[in-house]
């Protein structure tokens, strides 16, 4: 079952967004939400409640690993890191997403 809590996101894009935001290094859950919010200039918001199920599904699939560390303000936090498999997944999903968006745009402009 895909997360249904963010209807404004295209199905499956949540994984893509998480993978992309982790591609520059490990982050904890809140930082992922923040990175996506900031990068989209608040255009995209991930519901906090649906973030953790998604992260855990990705752990099961072996795209991510997690470890406990210390946050920027010295609190114990759980950091997620991309695995090589996760990086491959990011590449394929990003490519697919690009093709999809371009196709939709083409339809919007010409049809």
């Amino acid at each position: 079952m895909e997360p249904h809590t963010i209807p404004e996101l295209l199905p499956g894009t949540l994984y893509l967004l998480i993978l992309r935001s982790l591609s520059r290094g490990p982050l904890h859950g809140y930082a992922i939400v923040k990175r996506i919010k900031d990068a989209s200039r608040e255009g995209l918001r991930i519901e906090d409640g649906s973030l953790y199920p998604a992260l855990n599904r990705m752990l099961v699939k072996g795209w991510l690993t997690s470890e406990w560390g210390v946050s920027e303000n010295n609190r114990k936090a759980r950091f997620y890191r991309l695995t090589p498999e996760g990086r491959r997944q990011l590449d394929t999903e990003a490519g697919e997403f690009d093709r999809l968006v371009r196709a939709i745009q083409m339809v919007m402009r010409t049809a």
Partner: protein
Amino acid sequence: MAFWNEIGNRVAWLFRRSRFDREFEEEVRFHIQARADELEQAGLTGADALRQARREFGSTLRSWEETRSAWQMRWLEDLGSDLHYAARSLRRNRALALAAVGSLALGIGANTTIFSVAREALFSQPSCRDFQSLVQISVGGNTWVPMSQYRFLEDTHAFDGLAGMNIQMVVNWRDGNRSYRLAGTRVTGNFFEVVGIPVAMGRPIERSESNVAVITHGFWTKHLGGDPNVVGRTLALDGEPYTVIGVLPRDHRMLAGFGFTPDLYLTKDPGEVMLYARLPRGMTRQAAYTRLQPICRELDRVYPDVNRQWAKEVRLSAVGGVERLQEGGQEAIPVAAFFVMLVVVTAIVVLIACANVSSLLLARAFTRSREFAIRMSLGGSRGRLVRQLLAESLLLALLGTGAGLLLNLWLTSLLSGVHIPTPLPIELVIQPDRMLLAYSVALAFVVTLATGLVPALKGTRAGIGGALKEGGRQAGPAGYALRNALVVGQLAVSILLLSVGLLFIRNLMYATSFNAGFDTTHTLVATYQTVWGSYTPRKFAALVDTALDRLRALPGVEAASPASAVPLNPFLAFNRPGGQFRPDSGSRTVRAQYNSNAVGPDYFRIMGIPILQGRAFADSDRIGAPEVVILNENLARRLFGNSNPVGHTLRFPNNRDARVVGVARNCKYVTLGEDHASAVYEPFFQQNHSAFAHFFVRTRSAPETMVRKVDETLAGLDGGAAVETHAMGEVFAGALLPSRLGAAILGSMALFGLLLASIGLYGVLLYATQQRIREIGIRVALGATPANVLAMVVGQSLRLVTAGAGFGLAVAAIAVRPLSMFLVPEVRPADPMNFVMVAAVLALVAGLATVAPTARALRVDPAVALRHE
């Protein structure tokens, strides 16, 4: 790949579930705290910021549930709870559970044991290094070659080593003042090196060593008391000192296969050897063959032999596994077929047991159909119910298989190391292994589906409304039909089992009654072997004469005679030459193969073999006197037709002429199963013997009482000679072994199958009667007599039994045909008498199974029955 990673991750998660909850809580707390910190920086007060952050996060419970479900394997957890529930429901029905597990365990125990034994006897790998690159070589269509030819082949260095062994040798071991016959395998010096046989203690035999021996674990423990300092000990073998240099491990499996186990390996000129070659790395057998061909042609040039050409029929065969069996040819087929039959028979028993369990589960599923209907009407899915019912049969199958495996371990440990009473030293080393485990798991799976699937599907199919309306009391016609079909099937296959079992029991009865053509009740036989080379034929003949005189002088001995072969004994077997005979040395030739035995004058009297025409041998038939022979009836008829052969001359295939002086009645020579076998007797003293003789002794009292006397008398003649004395009946145990084994296993399987089938019949009849108590009550109230009720129940039983017996007999009549290969010719599989007996036994047992249900039906009191709910 990714799939398995995922499963692995999930399974790993199962083990840290409690940590997961704690960590999730901590992570969410951090998340909310981080958001609250941010909100506080934006200007909210601490408490407001925290409240706001919590609100934004939403329901932590839902998030927790969704997160958790990311990891869960629903089916696994469901299975756990299903099994738990099944265990509870089986505990409540202890009788059912015990009956089901017990019958499955016996069936599976028998089946896996046969599997283990067959695997060990037929497919085991010999103890050696890399058996794939080791091949057995036969040249000139013969697996045996003389030593000079062996040396020639080895000197070519065509392979990474060529070794030879001779398993057929007997060595005399002198221990204290007694000598024993040992099965000693003589090997070439490089044998251990080429084959790569692991030793448990000491070291293997090395090239150019002499007078050393490696002993087997069995010989070490049984004859040397497991002496820990055995390495270095000296054994007097055939009058020479041999140093024990190594002990083989307990699970040593010899290259010869089939459980053949000698007492020791020793370096001594083997005379002739079987060849084993180690192929160089990467060389295929085809390439090895191509390399061997020209060498064999060279061999033909160097050692020309009129009787065989070495380069003809060159063959390289595997030394282990299925391949050895395929290439084993003639000898292996009946053995393999016998095991296949045993596996099939025991599998049928498992099936009958399954049918019983299935029938019990079916009955239960129908009585519970009201519960199922309620659960389905409340939204429970049928799949879920089916799974739950299957969990019950899975549990039963697992318990049954587990108990069966324990039975298997116990039985095989009994069988393993048992010295099978054959003159051949055969011992099987049966150990549980992964194959057995895999086989059992597969069996458990099959049993689960066979017992559970149909009851589960049928039991849950009843429509919601129907089951509730009927009150769940009636099984419905579908349920009856299915259980009836199961019982008919059970009865039919138990007919098949009974037919097979009966044939083998009759075979055993026939074999034991021993119409082998001679009398064994007052006979004993001593096998006498002097150290090779210590007598000339003339001196040995004098020794045998002395031995006979001393034996005859013993009180209680009626007669004594030497012989070169013991009938019905594969190890002391007859020579079986054959070729063109020329009666009256004329031009007419008759081709025949015959069993040859050299016997003394009293042999026929001792064995109770009547001389039908002419005379027995006389003391005067010795070297120098005219050569004479006695034929058996079969050969006399083949050579001379109906005319009297006595006085005629016969030219043997080797161009020797001998005069026929008598015709002896036919008897069995090599196996009880043989038919129309030919035999030639020659006078013992007209042949050259120099080391070996059997003494046949006829006693006045039971032969067992004379064994020691005879043994001591013979042992006193020459201390170096090995003597082994047994009552004749014991010696024939080997010949009877296949019949005994077959009768014991198949007879007990047949009885067991019949028992299970009759329990099945009993269960169905009793259940049907109980379901119809109300109906019977009404009938009785309306005036049905006890005779009518009787007819009702007995009629049902009769219908089932007739149908089962009909199917069973039809199948059995065809299926038992090929069994004739295991039976003596006098027991014919097609004999209608067999089937009459089988049907009678089944009718009797079925009758017994009907008694209780009938009694129950007759006891029905209409007043009680009408209130019966």
